[in-house]
């Protein structure tokens, strides 16, 4: 859960599909859990793609391909569209991913990742397609995500890009703080707003 971010360097797991929705990340039938058991969600990440109907691992799905590993998921554009279920972020975190790289994230899912100390890194289409090519050519391709500098680097080519992260959230991620800690400190401001708008 709460963990501090600095520099992450890792091999990647590629998922070169667009519009991966949160129903695929974690199907609705797993949403009946009443606790935040990240192992349970992580074990069922991409369940219907990852396992065959008989429950055996589907060898064609990337999470079952022994060539690929690492704590960085690289996905096609519009990752995390659809349902607001935070369970999707819990599943990604529970599996062990700390960073998701895509050229475009759906809004709610992006926030959910940040609130669970998974870093969504938005890159250009060009960076993304080159990275997919590099990983395909060499599954041991590494990427470096430098949170303090806000840069992401494809170590196979040296290509590097700046990524967006507001100063507030960057401070939270680097220090392992969440938004509720911040909001609880602002009670006077909340009450002042209520008084002004009564």
């Amino acid at each position: 859960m709460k963990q501090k971010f600095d520099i992450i360097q890792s091999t990647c797991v590629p998922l070169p599909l667009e519009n991966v929705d949160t129903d695929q990340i974690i199907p609705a039938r797993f949403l009946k859990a009443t606790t935040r058991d990240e192992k349970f969600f992580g074990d069922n990440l991409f369940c219907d793609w990852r396992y065959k109907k008989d429950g055996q691992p589907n060898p064609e799905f990337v999470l079952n391909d022994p060539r690929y590993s690492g704590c960085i998921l690289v996905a096609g554009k519009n990752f995390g569209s659809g349902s607001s279920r935070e369970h999707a972020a819990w599943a990604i975190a529970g599996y062990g991913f700390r960073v998701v790289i895509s050229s475009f994230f759906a809004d709610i899912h992006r926030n959910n990742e940040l609130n669970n100390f998974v870093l969504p890194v938005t890159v250009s289409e060009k960076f993304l397609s080159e990275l997919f090519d590099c990983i395909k050519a060499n599954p041991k391709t590494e990427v470096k995500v430098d949170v303090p500098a806000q840069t992401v680097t494809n170590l196979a080519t040296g290509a590097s890009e700046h990524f967006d992260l507001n100063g507030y959230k960057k401070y939270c991620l680097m220090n392992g703080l969440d938004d509720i800690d911040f909001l609880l400190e602002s009670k006077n401001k909340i009450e002042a707003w209520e008084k002004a708008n009564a």
Partner: protein
Amino acid sequence: MNTLFDKIWDRHVVQIVEDGPTQLYIDRLYCHEVTTPQAFDGMRERGIKPLRPAQIVCMPDHNTPTHDQDKPIEDPVSKKQVDTLAANAAEFGLAHYGMMDKRNGIIHVVGPERGLSLPGMTIVCGDSHTSTHGAVGAVAFGIGTSEVEMVMASQCILQQKPKSMRISVEGKLDRGVTAKDVALYIMSKMSTSGATGYFVEYAGSVVRDLSMEGRLTLCNLSIEMGARGGFVAPDEKTFAYLKGREHAPKGADWDKAVAYWKTLRSGDDAVFDREVVYDAADITPVVTYGTNPGMGMGICSTIPALNSVPGSGQASFLRSLNYMGFEPGEKMLGKKVDYVFCGSCTNGRIEDFRAFASIAAGRKKAPGVVCWLVPGSWMVKEQIEKEGLDKVLEAAGFEIRQPGCSACLAMNDDKIPAGCLSVSTSNRNFEGRQGPGARTVLASPLTAAAAAVTGVITDPRTLM
């Protein structure tokens, strides 16, 4: 600048965090059983109570069965989640409309119909279809569970202010073309990510002419093009809809509220980050052919050819058609249908059942089609009975079930079996959404009814 979105958002700003998000005050938090248990756990772990419990309303809807709601839920896991919401609401002192309570139903149907969602409000819920409430002229959006906990703890949320977009639909809709078709049409033009980062104001003569039910359908689907939310500026139709509803202001408070609500419109000089205009004349009944809601087409058209899809999207496009068992260039008309579902927060309101019954009247359900008609709330079910629509539908071989989210996401036992083709009035045709392996075609209640009585995908205009 000077958009209605700016007016409502800016009024609710508590503070803007330096180099960070906005702390936004939230008027109303809705809680359902699926996305809240971990938020309540978080509150307990921190040892805190909701700051403004009176502004929070809870109700189960996702897991509720659509039959025998007076008996305990058979699935023990679903039962536990529903019971957990009731226990949490009691522990934290929150309003809770449980199963069999006449106020229960899908949270996005109940909020407006009980007058809990009002113009000018900020409204959130751990559910992406919270955008529905925008139809009353509110800024309403879906959030995650950590954010539910934020709002419980502080009645505030930290958010980046979205950009603003105005989508105008001008002209007049043809007979047989509904709010659902307008929404599916817009999505097919926008794609599922075209409005990401934006809050949408729907405008134009078509939107003004829509009933409140139609506006609720339109706003409901905002998230399916990536928008955080969508709303319609309140007008006389909005006020007439809300007047007298349980939680709407009464007496002098009502007059005062309406006076304020009348100011809730974008200025003539409003500047939007993006403006889009569509022509009603281009919109026919729409069906989807793929596995995201942006993959829609006019019901009489053909599925696009592969070469019409950009290169980076071709793998997803082929995967999608392969899942659906369809070929590029094929027609959708005439495809055999196994299941029909009419309901959900998208199309589970009284007008939707009136539309369905208008096609079913004097006809019979096609043999071999299983049809689930699920009202969005007990209030909708009562209205169906009051208008005698249940009798019309029964005579045609249909049955009205009890309210809940049902087959929209199949968290209860209403699951479409693998491989079966379902014509559904719900909001998502994702792989496995209505049950593992289920194949979903999204459509309006009229198109769903046409499929239910013919057993194949049928243009409803031929039955009107």
